[in-house]
């Protein structure tokens, strides 16, 4: 049986907070991406931080140490599939 990767979405009040944490995390060399917030994570559209499972602890540490503002972290089965061919 195939195991599904879990990704984490850090949600924010606004895009400014999202970019601030993104930059703080990237300065530490942690691989994260800016992502639209999946509907499964929130009913509101907006900017979130996509974190892979192996990086989530480092991101949480960064949040604690910098006092970065965020709303919550939502784990979800991996959402991306480059061969889905479903366009907007």
């Amino acid at each position, binding site marked *: 049986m195939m195991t599904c990767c879990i990704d984490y979405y850090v*949600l*924010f*009040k*606004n*895009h400014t907070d*999202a*970019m601030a944490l*993104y930059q703080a995390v*990237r300065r530490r060399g942690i691989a994260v*991406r*800016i*992502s*639209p*917030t*999946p*509907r499964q994570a*929130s009913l*509101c*559209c*907006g*900017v*979130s931080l*996509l974190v892979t499972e192996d990086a989530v602890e480092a991101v949480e540490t960064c949040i604690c140490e910098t006092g970065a503002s965020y*709303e919550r972290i939502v784990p979800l089965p991996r*959402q*991306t*599939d*480059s*061969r*889905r*061919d*479903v*366009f*907007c």
Partner: protein
Amino acid sequence: MTDRHEMWKELGMDLEAHDTLCAVLPTAFGDIFLSQENRPEGMAFYDMVVSDIHGIRPAELIEEQKRGRKIFGTFCLYVPDEIIVAADGIVTGLCGGSQFWVPDGEKVLPKNVCPLIKASVGARLGRTCPFFRIADMYVGETTCDGKKKAWEILGEDVPLHIMDMPQMKRVKDIEKWIGEIKEFKQVVETFTGHEVTAENLHAAIVLLNKRRKAMARVYACRKADPIPISGKDVLLMTQIAFFDDPQRCADQANALAEELERRIDAGIGVFPKGTKRILLTGTPMAIPNWKMHHIIETSGAAVVCEECCTGTRYVEHLVDERPMMMEGQLQALADRYMKNNCACFTPNKGRIDDIIRLAEAYHADGVIDVNLKFCTLYDTEKRDVKRALKAAGIPVLSLETDYDDTDAEQLRTRVEAFIEMLG
């Protein structure tokens, strides 16, 4: 996340229908963009913009409106942004790149109109695009029959000015085009209450040239092998430029270009060295139309250049900054805009020359000529494109598609076969 529903409600949008679009965008964007590896750091800005595409920029535009500035929604590269910017107006692109908007467009347009026009009209009439709701004036042009009729619908409840495009590029046609720009200047001055002077027009020309130069710098990086950025990421940058503040657009593009230049020096690419290189030509790809780029770049090739309105036509050819008097500036604008080679002109050999020139400059292994269904101008021109490329020894594949998902597998099969044929 900031709840935009109140803003959208005040704009008179259909929240329920719009919510359907908001629900699918993250999945499509994730599949197409976030599935890529080793993207440039500079793409984070563009990812942010898309993540809240109907929120961040619309909120900025509304704030500017409150300060008394006018927003002009435009559809075409021939509309000279410089005139609007000189009058302290703001230019924004409008929605038109998604199948989501097509059914609303088909309620008032024949089905055999191109999806770009159907989606644009649908986005307006369905009240599912904030940019259409915000724009104080739409600026249309007579580049095709479908658009000409669409303006009659779109102009029913929003002020709309139409620029009458020449169909040829003789001296008398260029002179006529200068007349159109002059008339447009008067319309913009009246609408904004700001006079376009030689001084503020010069500043606008310099600013928009700055944007062109910055974006062209990003494009130039794609000539390298390995390629430091994917075609779809450059397409995204270009699509967003139509909506963004020109100065911020130039700053972000310059930052991205600096990163790409460092990548080239370090031999860093997003595709393996030697990946087959495709030049795309044809009809424009309005956001969020990422279909062909995605199919090509998940079929073993890379898009290295786009000869189209969402490509080199937007970033090439600077307006001459030397004239300091109005007459010379209007001539310079007309000259620059007439260097764009759209299929609406006859004859249009300039486009074929552009395709061959760009294919050589970007070291393309092949050209894919992709046109939106029912665009008779580009569809007809593909014969000449094919013949000229064949004569130049450049392999070419002609495709026709729309915004629907249903032909994705067929397109992929044809693209894969073409790439395989490139050797």
